[in-house]
């Protein structure tokens, strides 16, 4: 009879053992790396279809025009090791198993602002060299272009996304008067020279 109870207790205790065994063995060291936005490029996109497509065509439907900003990122040399020392135990219990990432990539060059300037007359009250940033919106969420600053200053965990692109859609089409357009995208940094990118298109 006694033996039966012992066997029953062992069977019942198995799930508990599993809980204790499931404690996560977190690495105590987080490598803190840094990255730089090493390159930017600008391309025209045609959003007439279901998804925006890069195009080399000179003429694009003005109601479906957008620009694609491609960002290349480069990891810099390893700079810092952060040791995470838990207070009492070297492992967290399964209930609160949230380990710090083994590696993080923090930005080094901080983007301050992004502006889009039209180099040609756009509409009546937006002549050449006017700031028309507000006429562009980020694709999908239709947020302001200023939201892009957050993406360019993003600190990555685990893996650095080395190439990323952002689609910026023109939501206010230009007047009929002028078909040829040039847009200048200006990215200003806190600690780096300003980057200026140019694109040319006929908006029909």
């Amino acid at each position, binding site marked *: 009879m006694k033996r039966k109870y012992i066997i029953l207790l062992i069977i019942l205790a198995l799930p508990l053992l599993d809980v204790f065994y499931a404690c996560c063995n977190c690495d105590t060291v987080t490598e803190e790396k840094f990255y730089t936005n090493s390159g930017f490029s600008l391309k025209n996109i045609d959003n*007439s*279809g*279901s998804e925006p497509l890069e195009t080399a065509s000179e003429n694009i439907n003005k*109601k479906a*025009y*957008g620009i694609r900003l491609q960002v290349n990122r480069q990891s810099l040399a390893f700079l810092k090791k952060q040791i995470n020392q838990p207070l009492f135990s070297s492992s967290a219990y399964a209930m609160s198993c949230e380990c710090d990432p083994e590696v993080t990539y923090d930005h080094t060059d901080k983007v301050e602002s992004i502006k889009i300037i039209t180099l040609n007359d756009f509409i009546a009250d937006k002549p050449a060299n006017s700031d028309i940033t507000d006429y562009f919106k980020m694709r999908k969420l239709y947020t302001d272009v200023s939201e892009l600053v957050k993406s360019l200053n993003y600190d990555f965990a685990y893996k650095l996304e080395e190439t990323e692109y952002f689609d910026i*859609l023109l*939501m206010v089409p230009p007047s009929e008067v002028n078909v040829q357009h040039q847009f200048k995208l200006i990215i200003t940094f806190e600690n780096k020279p300003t980057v200026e990118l140019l694109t040319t298109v006929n908006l029909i």
Partner: protein
Amino acid sequence: MKNINILTCLLFTVVFSNQLFSQNKDSSIYTNRFQLKVEGGLNMPLTNMNQNKITDYFVEYSSESKFVPSLSAIWFIRKRFGIEADLKFVYFNDGRSTGTNFQKFANEEFGENYYVKASSPIDNNFIPVISFGMVYRIETEHFYFYPKFSIGITSFYSNWGGIDLKEKNTNNEYKISYSQGGIAKDNFTLTPAVTMGYKMSDRFWVDLNLKTSFFRSNFTYEKTLTNLYTKEVEQVEQIPYKENVVEAYFSVGVTYVLSRKNY
């Protein structure tokens, strides 16, 4: 393996319960005290809650005739009266086709001017319906007739639905949303029924059953059209589902008499 275990248990019950519960009885009229029944048959909706609108695709409740099994137990507390517990295995297995039809419907409705992407978490579903009620019995030596009345809950999910619209040749996108309060709907259900059957032996009876169930659906879908650029909600429509839903369940059952008593 699981099926073998179930069969073994059933066999055990059949073989040994005779010894456990049997009494010396000459007549089988009004002596049945506790009985179990397995039945299966066609569940036919006589009226349904469909509105012939796009929101019909989001309701996980079958409006088609289907084969449905059920289990029940009756305990006779008096010579003529008993109480019954019934478990009906209702299911909805049209999740995939409904999802496809929703996309097709959305394409037909908006496809001329927009690229259309329809989405809804609609899926196959299995919801046991439990009901409890009263049974009156009329019996002869070989035949029996049980009028019954029970109450229960009929549950189903009424999901949200969404259609993403990308306007052709422009940068504009819209979102059509269909939603209504909580997804799970529990409906108070009334079930009058009759069972008539033949006593094949003291323990095994076979019968025909007719159950009608009634509940009233009571929820309203709200349709909103949002311009994702301007964030304006451009149109609102309400689609009420307030219908009397009546179903008929024709089934054949096998009853096993577990326990007997002289009343």
